[in-house]
């Protein structure tokens, strides 16, 4: 039963990959779905998180997860500052959509080029004792370099879900794009609410980046490969839905893994676009969109 083992292993690897995809997509889903901020630069912040993990690992021997946690507040502040610039230059003037897109494209470009200048085009990676190892459950092998990102990705998703569903600021985040004026009548300041939310969206990239470089080597232009994937996940999940993002990410992970196993890895990138197109055609609001 070699093919059954192969199938089980492909399924397991896909699920693990999916937990990681959720971590990468949360920020996009939040920005587009809850804040109406067209932050197409999100994947490049994930890459930035990867380089943070790389430097701290190469210089000080830090575990990538530790770096991800340490840099989460740094990325939060980065997100808040970025939102304030965006707000002052575009949102306040009511010119957000198209010019906002140009703004975030510019941010993407600047960060990518800065990384290129600082680190070159070489692939970088991190070292940690557990990265090459795996555990076996029956015929299924779970590599730590996928298992750890899965666990951390699911925990990150859970934390964000808890924040949005259970805290006062979280509920305000869910409301702010629907009616910012009404939110003021509830006693909340929409600008502050969006600052916090965008800060958190960017903050997720610190951990997601650490996970990315744990899974495989990273170079500055890798964000381009991820843009299609994160959009597929966010659209399929229903923009702004955190639980939807997780389910969609797991689905995409499994779909990619099965494709890579049975048709060859070169097909797996096409899977995300197929999923994206299918989602747009069949259910534009996504699986969990409201």
């Amino acid at each position, binding site marked *: 039963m070699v093919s059954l083992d192969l199938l089980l292993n492909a399924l397991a690897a896909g699920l693990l990959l999916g937990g990681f995809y959720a971590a990468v997509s949360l920020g996009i889903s939040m920005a587009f779905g809850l804040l109406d901020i067209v932050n197409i630069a999100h994947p490049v912040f994930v890459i930035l998180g990867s380089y943070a993990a790389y430097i701290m690992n190469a210089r000080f021997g830090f575990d990538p997860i530790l770096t991800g946690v340490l840099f989460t507040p740094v990325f939060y502040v980065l997100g808040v500052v970025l939102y304030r610039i965006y707000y002052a230059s575009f949102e306040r003037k009511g010119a957000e959509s198209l010019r906002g897109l140009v703004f975030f494209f510019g941010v993407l470009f600047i960060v990518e080029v800065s990384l290129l200048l600082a680190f070159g085009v070489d692939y970088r990676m991190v070292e940690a004792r557990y990265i090459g190892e795996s555990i076996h459950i029956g015929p299924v092998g779970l590599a730590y370099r996928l298992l750890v990102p899965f666990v951390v990705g699911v925990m990150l998703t859970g934390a964000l879900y808890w924040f949005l569903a259970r805290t*006062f600021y979280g509920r*305000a985040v869910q*409301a702010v794009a*629907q009616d910012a*004026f009404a939110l003021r*009548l*509830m006693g909340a300041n929409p600008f502050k609410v969006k600052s916090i939310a965008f800060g958190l969206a960017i903050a997720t990239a610190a951990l997601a980046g650490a996970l990315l470089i744990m899974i495989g080597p990273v170079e500055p232009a890798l964000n381009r490969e991820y843009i299609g994937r994160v959009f597929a996940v966010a659209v399929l999940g229903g923009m702004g839905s955190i639980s939807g993002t997780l389910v969609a990410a797991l689905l995409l992970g499994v779909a990619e893994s099965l494709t890579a196993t049975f048709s060859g890895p070169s097909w797996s990138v096409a899977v995300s676009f197929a999923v994206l197109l299918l989602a747009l055609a069949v259910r534009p609001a996504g699986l969990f969109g409201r």
Partner: protein
Amino acid sequence: MVGSRLVLRDVEAGYGAVRVLHGVSIDVNEGETVVLLGTNGNGKSTLIKCIMGIVRPERGEIALERDGERIDLIGRAPEDMVHLGITLVPEGRRLFPKLTVEENLMLGAFRAAARRDIAKNLDLCFEAFPVLRSRRRQLAGSMSGGEQQMLAIGRALMSTPAILLVDEPSVGLAPLLVSRVITTIRDLKERYHLTVLMAEQNFNQAVKIADRGYVIVHGQIAFEGRTEDLTEHELVKKYYLGL
């Protein structure tokens, strides 16, 4: 509950070059239900917006008096008013359509001072509007106009307000519902020891619950008095209320 009173003196306000309010003075005393009567376009909403900090008056005073303290309201943001205990049920309800009934209500409790009262306030809301309990998981945008108005009032009550401002709760509702919403405002007012200022065009419904009223015409107070006097006033009957 702290005693709170609203005082407006010679308020002049408008939009750009257009002046809408020409020296309006009103008082809303603690525990009163005051109704602001007037047909469309006479400045009811503008006055409410001035109190709430949404429109900034060009001249005049707006103050909240509470525990012998006088708080100047002009220049404060709407969210500050909520923290001072003044909550508005706005024109057009302004619910969050893609959030559930319960999520809308919880947002009403954003005010720090209201957070410890959530369980109690939620119970009172559901008691006053049982339909909100059975629809708590439904999206606000999918409810009927009457249910949405109830939710808007319930959401405002979640902030434990001292002063409740209500802008035309009757708009878009069937007559029977108008009557129900208005009488519920009265019940809630008694139960919560609220002070209420309500803008309405529907004279007959509004006077059912009002202690006092002001008639606003072209941005000026044309008549003020106790409810009995209002109903007797010929001018009011004939010209402004179309009776």
